[in-house]
């Protein structure tokens, strides 16, 4: 508002230029100040320090038998831990990865072939896919099936069919021992 405040006696020349410069400077300062003030009010909605600190979860995977899966919570999201059978591992590795919508080798998605660890959130629109229970529908590729919009994931958690654009993401994790995993 300030920088448009021309007085009725507006005139050209040096006086007018000085005046315009003053108005523009003040206006620019005001705009910069208002913009800078907005930042704290925007940034407060980003994760707070206590939320960021809860970034690891330790899981005891000893009770999980071959062919079974468990779901644990990490950062408020489900993490799928599946102890794969040899057949599932072979199925995941026996394909030409160049034919996949999101090409990635199974070897690059696991640390130990037996253990597949995934963030269980469909990359389409965020539903939790089915397939954790042996009685669940697991889709055409024996991995997971998202019932919301019909995305099929294989036994490596890769997208094979349906609207999802990418594979189920692999979280950062580490085996602290043979039976303990720290996620995050």
């Amino acid at each position: 508002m300030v920088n448009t405040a021309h007085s009725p006696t507006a005139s050209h020349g040096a006086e007018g230029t000085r005046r315009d410069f003053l108005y523009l400077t003040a206006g620019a300062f005001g705009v910069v100040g208002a913009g800078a003030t907005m930042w704290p009010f925007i940034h407060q909605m980003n994760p707070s320090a206590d939320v960021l600190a809860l970034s690891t979860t330790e899981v005891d995977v000893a009770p999980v038998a071959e062919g079974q899966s468990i779901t644990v919570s990490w950062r408020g999201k489900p993490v799928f831990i599946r102890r794969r059978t040899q057949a599932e591992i072979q199925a995941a590795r026996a394909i030409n990865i160049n034919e996949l919508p999101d090409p990635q080798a199974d070897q690059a998605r696991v640390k130990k072939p037996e253990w597949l660890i995934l963030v269980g959130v469909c990359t389409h629109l965020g539903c939790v896919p089915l397939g954790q229970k042996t009685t669940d529908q697991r889709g055409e590729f024996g991995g997971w099936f998202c019932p919301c919009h019909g995305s099929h994931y294989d036994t490596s958690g890769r997208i094979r069919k349906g609207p999802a654009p990418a594979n189920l993401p692999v979280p950062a994790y580490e085996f602290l021992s043979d039976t303990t995993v720290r996620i995050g």
Partner: protein
Amino acid sequence: MATPSSSKFFGNPVVKWIEHRLPIFSFVDHSLGSQYPTPKNLSYWWNFGSLALAVLMVMIVSGIVLAMHFTPHVTMAFDSTERIMRDVNYGWLIRYIHMNGASFFFIVVYIHIFRGMYYGSYKAPREILWGLGVVILLLLMATAFMGYVLPWGQMSFWGATVITNLFSAIPLVGDYIVTWLWGGFAVENSTLNRFFSLHFLMPFLIVGVVVLHVWALHVHGSSNPIGIDAKGPQDKIPFHPYFTVKDAFGLTVFFIVFAAVIFFAPNVFGEPDNYIPANPLVTPEHIVPEWYFLPYYAILRAIPSKLLGVVAMFASILVLFILPWLDTSRVRSARFRPTYRWFFWIFVADCVVLGYIGAKPPEGWYLHIGRLATAWYFAHFLIVLPFLGWFERPLPLPASISEPVLKGAKATLMALAIGFGMLGFGAGPASAAGAPKPPAQKWSFDGVFGTFDAASRQRGFQVYREVCGACHALKQVYYRHLRDIGFSEDEVKAIAASVEVTDGPNDAGEMFQRPGRPSDRFKSPFANDNAARAGNNGALPVDLSLITKARPGGPDYLHALLTGYSDPPAGVKLSEGMNYNKYFPGNQIAMPQPLNADQVTYADGTKATVEQMAKDVTTFLAWAAEPELEARKRMGMKVMIFLVVLSALLFFVKRKVWSDVH
């Protein structure tokens, strides 16, 4: 009155297209723009209306943000407020804006009201405008009161108890009303919940009444320092650009003062007791309302009858509604009312006295002065104003606004002096009885530029960990916060892992012990308050998270307490299990002298004298209470420099814009 720039704007085809469908630009132009004629002689006292509106907006924005992080439950309200202060990004800034914004709202509104009184702005035809203003004041007071309850500190809780109990004075139905207000038999969770809901709602009611207030203002326009009506167009100038730029300049000056408090003295208006979590079983020794309620509180206490005291307190505000009819003088401005001018300033002084008395205990001379001041408050409205109109001989009024007029500089200075006098209340309420004032120490974190002495703070952590931590919890601090005082990530992990914390339930449904993690709170030495009492002869070791904010005197008090142990002077008999401390209120403290020379071994070779350990642990606890202190002061410096430059620029813009009027 259209300026060339505005006619150019309204000639723009896009603007024309919108205007034809929704005449919003001409609406704004008629409300706050070139089509709103305003008396050309308005002084800076007329800035306070726009300032109040600005503060209202600041309060709504910061309040909505705080509501995103606050939890209105008795077990979580205090902790969630502290989480805002410590963990939410810029949470400390937003909370300090909101908390101090309430005080500044009242400062601005009180000046706005006194301006209206001095210049007779409430007189015909502006009685409804004035009355709507009083409605806004009442809503503002209710909103501020409920907001103060939310952080659920001791003053929150007991303020809520006292104020809601006012309604119990109502004959017959009083008790039912109070129970209804509480939703229980005392102030409790249901009370907190509804206050949160109403505190969120009421600002929007205020916005609604402000719209009416501004609408009523626009019917006859602003009054002015001379108090005579404009005689023609030569007496008025368009609101924009003249008053938009003047208000913008005033706003930046206001923000300088506001920012100075937010960044450098954020608790100056507050009570230390409100950093103690609410305890329904113990009332603080000296309970006072926030400074802006002190005059009414003094009136309440001046009258030795429960019902009449409450009636008088409400009457002191309601009387403002009929002020336009009590004042029988037909001259508006006090500039032309030599006698009224005296009575006005006496009234202002009376309000200041009431505020002072409200902060003092109701005994002795304070009570007598409070009663006199209360009597004068009502006499001013009910006796002085009606009669003055008949007896007073006003000075001759000028023929028009454009005629050169008297200068008001003297009155301005006087008002400023009184305004600052009123500001003084926040700092002043009585300190704890029976203990000398703790001697002032030099702290590394004092002053505008002060930062924590990092070595002392780390040593202080060691003292806390090895000595204080045996009994005192530090619940608001998490191990991860230790990164801020110079520990590396691995050191923090090791410190956290040195304690066992309870977690669970596990898959078998059982709780189990595990080593602490950085994301854990500091482990409390006792499982709960009862265990803490049982382990300490019935005395509860207080949580130290906020200790330097929660005691009058702050770090000085803590240091004095730690070094203030001695044998009791002759004639003082200590109770069983108590120790003598010069600086503890009442001098008898259950905690034995906690610090003894060489109790800890400092890694950096500093000699662990009692004085040294007291200084170190106080520095650490000052950080624990105000971890944002350094960031706050750094940001404050930048904000102040920016605001000073911006207000200087706007000052010159304002001079330029007004150069053809003067």
